[in-house]
C-alpha cells in the first residue's frame, strides 16, 4: 500500500473561488456583506429598510439566495436596486462559485456596497466563505435568547449581530440582555445593533455604522 500525503482543506476549491471573488471586490472597491440567519428572522426586511435608509447616499446591489422562488429578489428590485436571485434548488447554503456566477449579472463598477443574503439556515453557511468582508448575523427576538448558545458557529464567525423584531419584546419570552450576553460570550468582538423593521427603530444607527464602515473600514 502506498500513502499519498495531501494535507489540504476539504473546502479548498470553495476557498479558491472565494479568493477570486474577494480580489474582484477589491478591484472595484466594493464593500461586501454576507447576511446569515435562520429563516424568517427578517433578513429581507432589513435589506429593504437599509436600502431605503441609504438611498441617495451610497449605491447598493443585492444577491439573494433562496432554496426556491425569486420572491426576495423581486422585493428588493421593487426598491430600484439591482438584485440577482440565486435559486439553490434544495442547497442549504450559498457557495462561492454560485456568487461568482451571479456577479456576472451585476455592473460592479456602479456600486459601492454589495449585500449577499444567504439561504436561511443558522448552521451550514458558516463553513462557506463567499469572499465577503464580513458576515452579519440576524437573530429575531421570537427565536429566544438561547439561540447563540445552541448555534454558536454563526455567531463565532460573524462581525455584526442585528437583533431584529425588538418591537415584539413585550409579547415574547426573550430577555434581550441575556441574548446579547449569550452572543458576546461566544464572540466578544461582535458589534451589536437592535432593530425593528416594523417601527424602523435602530435602522438609522445600523445604516450610519455601515456607511461609516464602508468609507473607513477598521
Amino acid at each position: 500500500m502506498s500513502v499519498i500525503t495531501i494535507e489540504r482543506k476539504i473546502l479548498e476549491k470553495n476557498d479558491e473561488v472565494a479568493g477570486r471573488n474577494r480580489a474582484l471586490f477589491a478591484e472595484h472597491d466594493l464593500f461586501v456583506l454576507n447576511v446569515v440567519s435562520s429563516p424568517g428572522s427578517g433578513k429581507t426586511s432589513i435589506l429593504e429598510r437599509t436600502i431605503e435608509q441609504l438611498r441617495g447616499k451610497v449605491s447598493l446591489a443585492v444577491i439573494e439566495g433562496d432554496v426556491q422562488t425569486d420572491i426576495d429578489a423581486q422585493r428588493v428590485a421593487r426598491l430600484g436596486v439591482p438584485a440577482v436571485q440565486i435559486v439553490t434548488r434544495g442547497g442549504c447554503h450559498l457557495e462561492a462559485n454560485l456568487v461568482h456566477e451571479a456577479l456576472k449579472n451585476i455592473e460592479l463598477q456602479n456600486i459601492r456596497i454589495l449585500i449577499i443574503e444567504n439561504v436561511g439556515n443558522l448552521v451550514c453557511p458558516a463553513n462557506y466563505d463567499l469572499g465577503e468582508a464580513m458576515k452579519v448575523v440576524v437573530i429575531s427576538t421570537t427565536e429566544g435568547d438561547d439561540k447563540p448558545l445552541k448555534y454558536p458557529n454563526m455567531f463565532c464567525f460573524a462581525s455584526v449581530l442585528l437583533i431584529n423584531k425588538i418591537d415584539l419584546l413585550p409579547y415574547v419570552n426573550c430577555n434581550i440582555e441575556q441574548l446579547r450576553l449569550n452572543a458576546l460570550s461566544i464572540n466578544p468582538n461582535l458589534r451589536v445593533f437592535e432593530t425593528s423593521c416594523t417601527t424602523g427603530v435602530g435602522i438609522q444607527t445600523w445604516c450610519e455604522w455601515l456607511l461609516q464602515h464602508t468609507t473607513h473600514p477598521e
Partner: protein
Amino acid sequence: MHEMSVAQQLLHLIRRNLNGANEEDVRSVRLRIGIGAGIVTESLRFCFEALVASSSFRHASLLIEETPFTIHCQACGSVSPSEPLILLCPACNSHRVQVLSGTEMELIEIEVADVEEKII
C-alpha cells in the same frame, strides 16, 4: 445538512491529488475534522459511502480523526480544551483567546493499493 456538499468537494480534492494513481485503487481516505467544524461525522460518512458506492472510488473507506477544540489565552498564556466555539479562557475568564484547533476540515492522506494488492 451540508455534509453531502462537503463529501462531493472531498472527492474532487482526491481526484486532484491522485498523482497518477487510479481512482479504483484508493483504499482509504483519512480526514481531520475538528469538533467545532460544524460537521456531523456520521452524516459525512453516510454521504461519502453513498457517493463512492456507485463510483470508481468504491473500494475506498473513510477514516476520520476528530480533533478537540483548544484555545490559547493571550491574557494568562494557558492552553485549554474548551466547549466548541466558546471563546472564553476557563483559567482566567478572558475573552482574548485564539483558537488553536477544533475547526479543521482537512484531507490528510489517501492510501492507494500497489500492483499486487489490486482487486481484479
